[in-house]
Structure formats: C-alpha cells, structure tokens
C-alpha cells in the first residue's frame, strides 16, 4: 500500500487530470508534474505495487515504437500494461501514465509498468523505478542543447545501470558500440540483439561522427559493415573489444514498401517462423528485435510475441498514414540526423519520388538548436524530391538546407501558416497520391491539430 504522501500526490494529480480533460485538452504531462511536486518518489511508490514489475525502454531513436510493440506483446500474453503511450517520456509523463491507471486510493489498475524514458532522464528514472528490464535501442546525438555530449551521457547511463541489482536484465543493441559497452560495467544478465544479414548496410561510414571510436580504449573502430552512423558490425583493432554475441539476431531482413520480414536466429534457441514487421524501414526491424529481446527478458513466449508484432500499428508520427481530401499523408517524425537518415532511407529504398510537407520548429521538445539539419543527409534526399512545401517556426532554415542540398528553387515553397501549408501540399499531390510529412515533434503536433480540426485525424493523446 503506498504511503500517505503518495496518496495525496495521487489524488492531486488525478484532480488535475480530470480538470484538463473536462476542458478538452490532452493531459500527458501536467498532472504528473503536480504529483511529482508533492511527492518526488511518486513513480517509485506506485511502480512497486506492479505484479510483473517494470520495463524501461530508452535510447535516442525508436523507443516509442519499441515500447508500443512490447505493450502489444505483453497484452497478447494476458498482461495489463500501464504504458506512457503518447511519447511524453520525461518523469512527469511516467507519473501521468500511472495517474491515469491508478485508483483514487493509489492502487495501480494494471500489473506491468512499461515506460518509455528519455535517455537523459534514464539514470534518475531507473533509480526510482528499480525496473526488471531496461531496453536501450541506440545512442545517437540528439538535441545537443539539452543533452550535451554523447560520451558523458553514456557514462551517466552506464553508472546508473551498474547500480541496479543483479535481478535487472539489460536488453542492449549489440550493433551500437556505445550501447553494447554499457554491459561491461555489471555481471548481471544481458540480452543482446542485432542484425547479422551480410546484405544489410554498406562499407562506407556515414558522415555522422557520434562514436566511431572504441568506447573502451578510444582507438578508431573497424567496421565490416556499417548500417547507420556508428551502428554496424564493429570491432576494435587496438584493445580487441568486439560486438557481443547476439541472443536475438536477424540473419535475413527483407525490406518491403510497407513492411519487412525478419529471419530470426541467435542463442535464444529454436527456429521460429519469419517475423513480419508491419511498418517499413530497417530501423523498425531493429525496433522489432529490441521488443522481442525484451519479451525474452520478461519470460514471455517468443512465438506469441511474433504473432503480436504482426498486428502492430505505428504511433504518433512514426510512419502512420492519414487520409485527407483524397490524398494519403504519411507522417514521419524527425528529430536528429540519424533518425532523419533512417527515415529517408526507408522512403527512398521503396523508389518513391516524394512530394514533401517538411516542418522544422525549435521549441524545447524539438531541440532549440536547429544545427542538426546540416548533418542530416538532405543531399541523398534532394534528387528524388518532386516538390517540398516547407513550414514551421524555423521553416526558413529548412528551406535553406534544401537549397544547399541542391533542390531546385522552383521545387521549394515556404508557407508559414500550418493550415495553408497542409492545403498547399495536398493540392500539389494528385488525387489518390501521397504526401510525405517530415516534421519535428511540436511541428507534428501542430500539423496534426489542424488535420484533426478538419476531421482527418485522431488527437494524439487518444491514440
């Protein structure tokens, strides 16, 4: 039974939530902030009541999709997850999810906590939540105005993981040297996932220098294959650190325009039917591997997990599609160079010549420093672009990026107003055609709000 302080914090948070919802607003963060102000240990107190414990999903890219996949898997197994679904993933988002699913006496109405945690908040979150499983998808440079430097962040995460009890299982991406090396700090159980298909990835490292050095001895790493940025088949010629053996491994990844298929192997034992991932892109194949490895760490059946994945639906801005005025809008959330390159890679490998609606903003949730667009590979995208309508609080920076990437002037159009930008992009696409919407977080929220008012989409806090 939670203590008196947690009870008060719970009641105050729930009242805030009721108030916000009564006025028709989404309540993803503020109620949690109220509860945490009253009781800083609120999330720990409520999480301790959960029968199947807590899993935390973190990393720079893919945490929302991975957590949603794991939620579906756990539900298929008959569990009742409490999940911060909407991608509001700071402490207050976790608190808000607990508030939404707790009784007025602060008893959780669920038996499993599944929390997507911002990587900068991960050290404090794992200390409070004492999770059974921690999943880390990858570590890229993201929003430098908030996280500062990647090595320092990895160090902090490593220290926090090292302080967890031996009963916590780590689920780590073997192909990301920074993430794989998080395991060397502790002797407890670790499950590694990775891609072992020799046809996936190239030999030329991409121009994003997040971590091409050995996380142990700092010598330059050698790559037999580079999948994306510093992710791939890596080894250190100097100190001998190598990619750890994969417990959940993809020996073949077949990428299609709307889905992919993975042949699964690894030390988990047994050969399973191919895994169907019903959303496109190699990075979503990685997310699926992470979710399956996490299911394994939670002792959930893999065959069932694979069936649950086949019915997966994407989240807010993660390649979901919305029908609007006879056109299909394909929403792609972009927020850092690695994520952007992965997203456009998925677009281009299907041979599209996209009509774009591209939106760049610089609110806190987007990252206030828009410099990252200059590291994203617009040069690979530009030759295929049919037309780009550009908007957002920093749309002019984005238009400039397209100009320097070589997109012809007559193919670029800046429309500041959200609604007018959607109208223009929609009008330019033929009836039955597709508009690819690339947007940062708050820009995507703004565009979705306009679409919702036009009757096209579901407000994001209800999805």
């Amino acid at each position, binding site marked *: 039974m939670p203590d008196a302080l947690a009870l008060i914090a719970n009641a105050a948070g729930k009242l805030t939530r009721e108030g916000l919802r009564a006025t028709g607003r989404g309540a993803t963060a503020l109620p949690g902030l109220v509860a945490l102000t009253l009781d800083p240990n609120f999330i720990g107190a409520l999480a301790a009541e959960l029968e199947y414990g807590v899993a935390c999903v973190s990393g720079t890219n893919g945490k929302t999709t991975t957590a949603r996949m794991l939620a579906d898997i756990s539900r298929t197994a008959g569990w009742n997850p409490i999940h911060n679904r909407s991608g509001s993933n700071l402490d207050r988002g976790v608190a808000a999810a607990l508030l939404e699913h707790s009784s007025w006496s602060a008893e959780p109405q669920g038996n499993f906590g599944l929390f997507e945690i911002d990587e900068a908040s991960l050290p404090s979150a794992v200390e409070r939540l004492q999770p059974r499983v921690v999943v880390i998808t990858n570590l890229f*440079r993201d929003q*430098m*105005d908030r996280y*500062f*430097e*990647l*090595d*320092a962040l990895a160090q902090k995460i490593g220290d926090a993981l090292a302080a967890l009890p031996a009963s916590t299982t780590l689920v780590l991406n073997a192909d990301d040297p920074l993430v794989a090396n998080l395991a060397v700090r502790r002797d407890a159980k670790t499950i590694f996932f990775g891609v072992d298909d020799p046809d996936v990835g190239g030999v030329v490292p991409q*121009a*994003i*220098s*997040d971590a*091409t*050095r050995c996380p142990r001895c*700092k010598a*330059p790493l050698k790559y037999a294959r580079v999948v994306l940025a510093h992710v791939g088949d890596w080894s250190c010629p100097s100190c001998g650190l190598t990619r750890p053996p994969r417990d959940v491994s993809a020996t073949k990844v077949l990428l299609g325009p709307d889905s992919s298929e993975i042949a699964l192997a690894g030390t988990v034992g047994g050969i399973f039917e191919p895994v169907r991932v019903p959303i496109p892109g190699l990075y979503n194949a990685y997310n699926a591997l992470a979710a399956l490895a996490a299911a394994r760490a939670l002792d959930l059946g893999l065959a069932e997990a694979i069936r649950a994945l086949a019915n997966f639906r994407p989240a807010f801005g993660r390649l979901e599609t919305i029908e609007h005025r006879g056109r299909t809008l394909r929403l792609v959330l972009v927020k850092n*160079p690695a994520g952007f390159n992965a997203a456009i890679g998925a677009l281009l490998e299907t041979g599209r010549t996209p009509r774009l609606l591209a939106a760049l903003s*610089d609110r806190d949730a987007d990252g*206030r*420093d*828009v*410099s*990252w*667009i*200059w*590291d994203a590979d617009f040069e690979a995208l530009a030759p295929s672009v049919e037309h780009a309508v550009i908007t957002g*609080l*920093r*749309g*002019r*920076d984005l*238009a*400039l*990026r397209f*100009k*320097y990437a070589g997109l012809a002037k007559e193919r670029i159009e*800046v429309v500041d107003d959200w609604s007018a930008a959607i109208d223009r992009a929609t009008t330019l696409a033929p009836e039955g055609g597709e508009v690819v919407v690339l947007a940062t977080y708050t820009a995507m929220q703004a565009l979705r709000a306009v679409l919702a008012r036009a009757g096209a989409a579901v407000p994001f806090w209800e999805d």
Partner: protein
Amino acid sequence: MDLRIAHLYPDLMNIYGDRGNVIALAQRAKWRGVEVEVRPYSIGEWAEPDWPDVWFFGGGQDQGQDIVGADLAGKSGAALRKSVEGGAAIFSVCGGYQLLGHEYVPETGPSIPGLGILDVTTRAGKRRFVGNLLVDSPDGQLVGFENHSGRTYLGPGAKPLGTVIAGNGNNGEDKTEGAVQGKVIGCYLHGSCLPKNPWLADRLLAWALDRRHKDAKLEPLDDVEEAAARAQASEVARTRT
C-alpha cells in the same frame, strides 16, 4: 579556377551540425563556377598540409577534443601553423576555436596548450551558455546558436568578430563574440554559421581564393533564402532566448 577546402578532424570534431559550413563554402564557390575539392584532415590523415586554401575546424565532444589537442601538439599543429603563414584561411567554431588559442584552463588540473594561432585564452566556466546568439559587426549581423561552457578572452593580437546583441558570446562579460586575426576566424556560432551568414562565407571564400588566384572576383549571388533564414533566426534570438 579551383578551391581547396580542408575539413579538420571531421570524425572527431563534428557534433553540432557544423558540417554546414563546409557545405556553404563549397556550394557558394560552385554556384560561381569555381571547381571545389573537399578533403578530410584527421589523425594519421595529414598528407599534403600545404594543399588547402581554407580550413574548417568545428566543435566536438570533450573526449574528441582531448585526442585532437594531443595530435595538434605534434607535427600536425606545426603543419597547420605553417599553412596559415603561407596564406591559408581558417574558419573555426567552438572547440576548434578554443584549440586555436593559447590554452584552455580547466577548473582543476594543468592547462591544455593550444596552437596559439589566435591570441585568445579560454577558461572553464561553471554555467553552460546554451541559446541563440545574435551579433553585430561593422560588416553585418551574424546569427547562430551557442553551446559552450568555456569563457574565451581576447589578447591584443586578436580583434573581436562582433558585439553581442543577444546571448553570451566569448565570455558573457565583455559583450564580444569571436576573434579575427589575419585570415583566421574563431567564433561560437553553430547553426550552421555560414549558410545563414553568407557575407562571412564570402569573405572566407575571397581570402581562400586569393591564396592561389590573385584578383579573383566573387560575383554576387541571389541570397533571398539566406536573408529570410537570417531574419527568422534573428527574430527568435531577440524574442525567445
């Protein structure tokens, strides 16, 4: 006519999107019919140090900066110094800027020597300066995004690049931002800096071309998009920082 651009330590000193500076220099030269080649210069990759007309040196993580500092303390640093004496230009940002100065003085421990190409010294500060940065100079405004904890102070040999209108700049005290000394520029402007501040890009191009092509003329370009991005970023710096 041709232009040779060197990107210093692109694998170690490129985490703030500073690569856009190389893209801007290259494109603005190509749009004027100049042939451009860009080469990386990094650890174990220092062939032909006399080749470049202009060097770009960006910001990195602390770790990268330590490795680069050690490399520059040897032959590479001497080669870079010789190249500047031979008329090459340098544009440096943040960590690169600091490494071109005399030294970096951390809060504790011995100071880390720099190249001394710029008459500046940097000391560690407690609070990190993170935000939009707007700077005035006699040649035009400059806009970007700063993200540094180092406090840089100019000696008599270097002139400030400009005066801070919004943000912190070199040290948050004397309202100066950046440093210019001969054809060497250092600053704290990420963004990337040069695409949104094309007058500065063109100044560097003029300096660079001058090294091997005397009396090279830079035709004006249509900078409508550059001006629009500048205006929007300046507005953000004035109102939201």
